[in-house]
């Protein structure tokens, strides 16, 4: 039963989601926060493509996945710019220092 491919895809999706959410909750490092976000997006990508594969409309799922990847890239690039700005301002990447921001 465990070696069933259906189960493996389901389990991989679930484990990626849990890993991403745990990373978002537990980390205090701004760059690792983005890594957690990236892992969550990977889980969603896997599920999108799998759903397209099941329903037989892989082309539509593929175009939606490409849109997801483009949005993911833009979010990560802008967030990395903000992280560099925060690092220049606070001289470290600790999330706790963001509470001290004013203005």
């Amino acid at each position, binding site marked *: *039963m465990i*070696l*069933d*491919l*259906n*189960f*493996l*895809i*389901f*389990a*991989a999706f679930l*484990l*990626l989601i849990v*890993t991403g959410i*745990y990373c978002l909750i*537990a*980390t*205090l*490092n701004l*760059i*690792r926060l983005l*890594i*957690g976000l*990236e*892992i969550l997006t*990977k889980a969603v*990508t896997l599920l999108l*493509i799998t759903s*397209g*594969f*099941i*329903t*037989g*409309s*892989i*082309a*539509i799922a*593929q*175009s*939606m*996945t*490409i*849109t997801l*990847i*483009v949005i993911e*890239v*833009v979010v*990560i*690039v*802008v967030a*990395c*710019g*903000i*992280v*560099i*700005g925060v*690092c220049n301002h606070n*001289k*470290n*990447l600790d999330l706790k220092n963001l509470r001290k921001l004013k203005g």
Partner: protein
Amino acid sequence: MKDILIMIILSGLVLFAVISVMIRSLVKAAIALAIASAFLAVMIFILGAWIAAVIELSVCAGMITVVFISSISLTIPLSKEEVAVEAKQRMSRFIYLPFILVLTLAAAIILWNSRLINFDFISALKGTQVNLDFSAQGSAIWDKRSIDILGQVIVLLSGAFGVVVLFKERNQK
């Protein structure tokens, strides 16, 4: 043979995702994330979405890793004392992740065996025809979902403007 390949790919995907969260070095974490992206790209390729697989491999495994490593190199590294303190704090925060993953896997096995959740991914395919024609996939992207392309261009432009605003140098008096 294909079953074993899919099993190895999915295991590698999860393993490298967990490594990228658990490992202390940020550069190694970014590289582990790139390897996880490469595994995902292979999985997407096996499922028949070739264009998305190529974009996943080139953009997520390539470009995002470059962006992460550039950002890490532009930030200030911790001193040895700070690294020692941070390592202990990190260990106390992330030590629970493997246990939570094992519990999640056990819960998934129980749910799967109890038939409460049972997505029949693979055998559902036998009744449906997946269109693996390359030209049909291209026409779906360029014709049926052409409005998405416009949205993607706008999102990319707004991202570019966002980066320009973030790195704009202020006029010095």
